[in-house]
């Protein structure tokens, strides 16, 4: 009997983790919560990976679906109703057991619970809510929980889950409304953005009342603050958008910016004061203290990188997201109507989007600095920062001993940590090239863009876009090799500038 039961738990786990594997948002970051007497677990702000699977991705959370049954029929999804495959559904008890036992053994940092839609969005959300409730209150689990909000579920249920989860996410699924219509006919932009806005308002309220415990700000928010930018998302929350901001936005003459506004606009204002369960829930963790994230599928519906980055930027600004994840489309259903860019190129494109996303969140770049309507796709052979720098040679070279922090951050080869170290070290004395390496600067990348005490590292370096591009690509063969591009020479660069052409 016991064996029977365990065999079935193992089988369910196999089916429901297999079904969850395409979800890319497996991080455990965003909240630092110390252990509590008698409770299992704590959380670390930076998150912790516990293993790495055969595809090289980090395993941090027990990433499973509650069920892989689904009444919907999203074209890109393996679990869609029309597919004939083994189906399984956990009980809340089983998920609690797996989470607790895995956590004790330090296999995982917590639970990532997503689900297909069984019976109705509310019914599904309720089962998820029960699982989280039991985990927190009966099993006294204090580790990390990431949970999906199901589009279309009622606000009460979304709120309940938000009191138990650390992070929530609603999948945007596809970057554009049109893409969503075509590929996920049962979902709408509105049913996705509504819970997103609800969670955002709830977090805002929780932060106001609970302070630090209510949740951390996102990297994007901190970067914007450092640069003195106003975020429309936060303005909208307080109920008034300053006229100047409106005007500024109207002035932007970019077509896709307009489009993005239509796309990500929700009818009606976000309501602060929307949390209704303060008395009924344990509020000591705050409401969704690790913030919310989302993911979109890249490459299934023909968007440009520019459209994608504009959407991400808008999400960071208007919905206060912690992270946007990009999931390179894998055509699991072999659906002929979906052209997928398979294999290495898809991975490389996804990689560039993550790098660009990083530039938005930590380096203070705006999407429109990196791409434009005229040049809507990243150069896959150069990282986006390098690409940007090469297009802005007039701003270089930068003097290491004088440049301000924000400018240092824009130098290829200098990251957040090395920029901080440079700023600290130069207070104690002038810096020269050999010192920089020890501070984590990637010199082979940076030398074209910096001087130390007025000198370039080598006299023969030229401040010339073509020369630098060639040198960097020459060195980068090793990097490209990782992505299976070793046979492509830099001379072909112009041919591949535009992804559309590279795809064809």
């Amino acid at each position, binding site marked *: 009997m016991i064996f029977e039961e*365990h065999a079935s*738990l*193992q089988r369910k*786990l*196999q089916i429901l*983790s*297999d079904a*969850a*594997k*395409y979800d890319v948002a497996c991080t455990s970051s965003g909240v630092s919560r*110390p*252990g*509590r*007497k*008698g*409770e*299992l*677990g*704590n959380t670390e702000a930076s998150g*912790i*990976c*516990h*293993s*790495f*699977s*055969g*595809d*090289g*991705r*980090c*395993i941090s959370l*027990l*990433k*499973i679906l509650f069920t892989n049954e689904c009444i919907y029929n999203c074209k890109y999804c393996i679990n869609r109703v029309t597919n004939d495959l083994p189906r399984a559904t956990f009980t809340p008890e089983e998920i609690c057991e*797996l989470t607790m*036992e*895995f956590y*004790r*053994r*330090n*296999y995982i940092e917590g639970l990532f619970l997503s689900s297909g839609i069984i019976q109705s969005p509310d019914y599904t959300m309720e089962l998820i809510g029960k699982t989280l409730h039991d985990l927190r209150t009966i099993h*006294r689990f204090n*580790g990390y929980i990431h949970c999906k909000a199901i589009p279309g579920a009622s606000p009460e249920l979304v709120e309940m889950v938000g009191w138990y989860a650390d992070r929530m996410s609603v999948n945007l699924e596809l970057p554009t409304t049109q893409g969503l219509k075509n590929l996920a006919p049962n979902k709408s932009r509105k049913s996705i953005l509504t819970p997103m806005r609800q969670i955002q308002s709830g977090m805002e309220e929780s932060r106001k009342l609970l302070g630090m415990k209510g949740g951390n700000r996102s990297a994007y928010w901190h970067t914007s603050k450092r640069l003195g930018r106003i975020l429309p998302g936060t303005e909208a929350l307080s109920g008034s958008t300053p006229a100047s901001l409106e005007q500024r936005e109207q002035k932007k003459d970019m077509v896709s910016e307009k489009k993005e506004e239509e796309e990500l606009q929700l009818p009606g204002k976000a309501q602060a004061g929307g949390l209704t369960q303060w008395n009924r829930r344990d509020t000591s963790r705050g409401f969704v203290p690790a913030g919310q994230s989302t993911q979109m599928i890249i490459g299934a519906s023909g968007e440009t990188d520019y459209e994608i980055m504009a959407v991400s930027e808008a999400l960071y600004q208007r919905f206060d997201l912690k992270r946007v994840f990009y999931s390179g489309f*894998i055509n699991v259903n072999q659906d002929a109507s979906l052209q997928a860019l*398979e*294999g290495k190129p898809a*991975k490389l494109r996804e990689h560039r989007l993550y790098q660009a996303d990083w530039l938005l969140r930590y380096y203070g770049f705006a999407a429109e600095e990196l791409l434009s309507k005229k040049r809507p796709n990243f150069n896959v052979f150069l990282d986006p920062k390098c690409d940007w720098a090469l297009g802005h040679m007039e701003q270089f070279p930068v003097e290491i001993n004088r440049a301000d922090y924000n400018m240092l951050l824009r130098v290829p080869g200098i990251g957040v940590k090395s920029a901080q*170290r440079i700023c*600290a*070290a130069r*207070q*104690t*004395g002038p*810096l*020269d090239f050999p*010192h920089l390496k*020890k*501070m984590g600067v990637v010199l082979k990348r940076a030398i074209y863009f910096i001087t130390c005490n007025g000198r370039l590292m080598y006299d023969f370096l030229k401040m010339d876009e073509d020369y630098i591009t060639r040198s960097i690509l020459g060195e980068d063969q090793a990097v490209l090799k*990782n992505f299976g591009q070793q046979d492509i020479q830099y001379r072909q660069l112009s041919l591949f500038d535009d992804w559309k052409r590279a795809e064809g």
Partner: protein
Amino acid sequence: MKKKIRVYQCQDTLEGILTAVYDAGKSRYGHDHIRLQAQPEGYHENFNLFSEYIQVEPDREKMEKVLRTVEEKISRQVCQQIICCAFCAQEDKADVIYHYIVCGFAMGAKVVKALQIPWVQRVFEMNRMITNEAHYYREFIRFQELPQDPPVLLSVIEPKNRILSFVAQHFADRLNPEWFIIYDKAYQEAVFHSPAEGWYIRRLEPEEGRQLAAMEDYQEEYVDLWKTFFEAVSIPERENRDLQRNHLPLHFRSHMPEFGN
């Protein structure tokens, strides 16, 4: 005539190294002519005819004096960095600690930022080694449950640096309702934790070490479940063993059940 280099040889412990720092500092022999060498017990090679050797006996009081002075005259952070270096498996660590303290007395608390100075760089590197390795172990330590009453969680590790004291608090905090042991096979010491009493680290007798090592077998049902999950969650179309190895170097895997046969 050129002044002879004077080498203070000491035990490879925080106490040993800081006692040597104390003696060397008091000697007024001149920093440029002083070297410190931390040596494992019973290790007496590496003599050089042109140097003068002094054997230092560890002295708790001298260690405490050094720590107190560094904290007062330089900073608490420098004090912590020094302790960190002492746990690092690097041959030059005693020498680095000594000269770092000398720099610290000259520059004050801002010495930590002066990465232009080689001694400061080395301290920075060693701290990073310890932090990185400790971080790896926070990720990759695996426990198995020993069937006892109450159940005890056991983990076996073989770190390069002596990082046990840098991970103990982390696990004590998150696993506070559990009894657990983390056994460091490389340095023959272990953390013991109980819910009521907290944790301590102690050196193990060889026999104790053998016993703990023999208990590591990963025969539990949850190991099978974990392996099932581990395999299922990987995307076959995206297999990338190199990337996996970059993130999770092979030498950790001998104590991780998901990589067992």
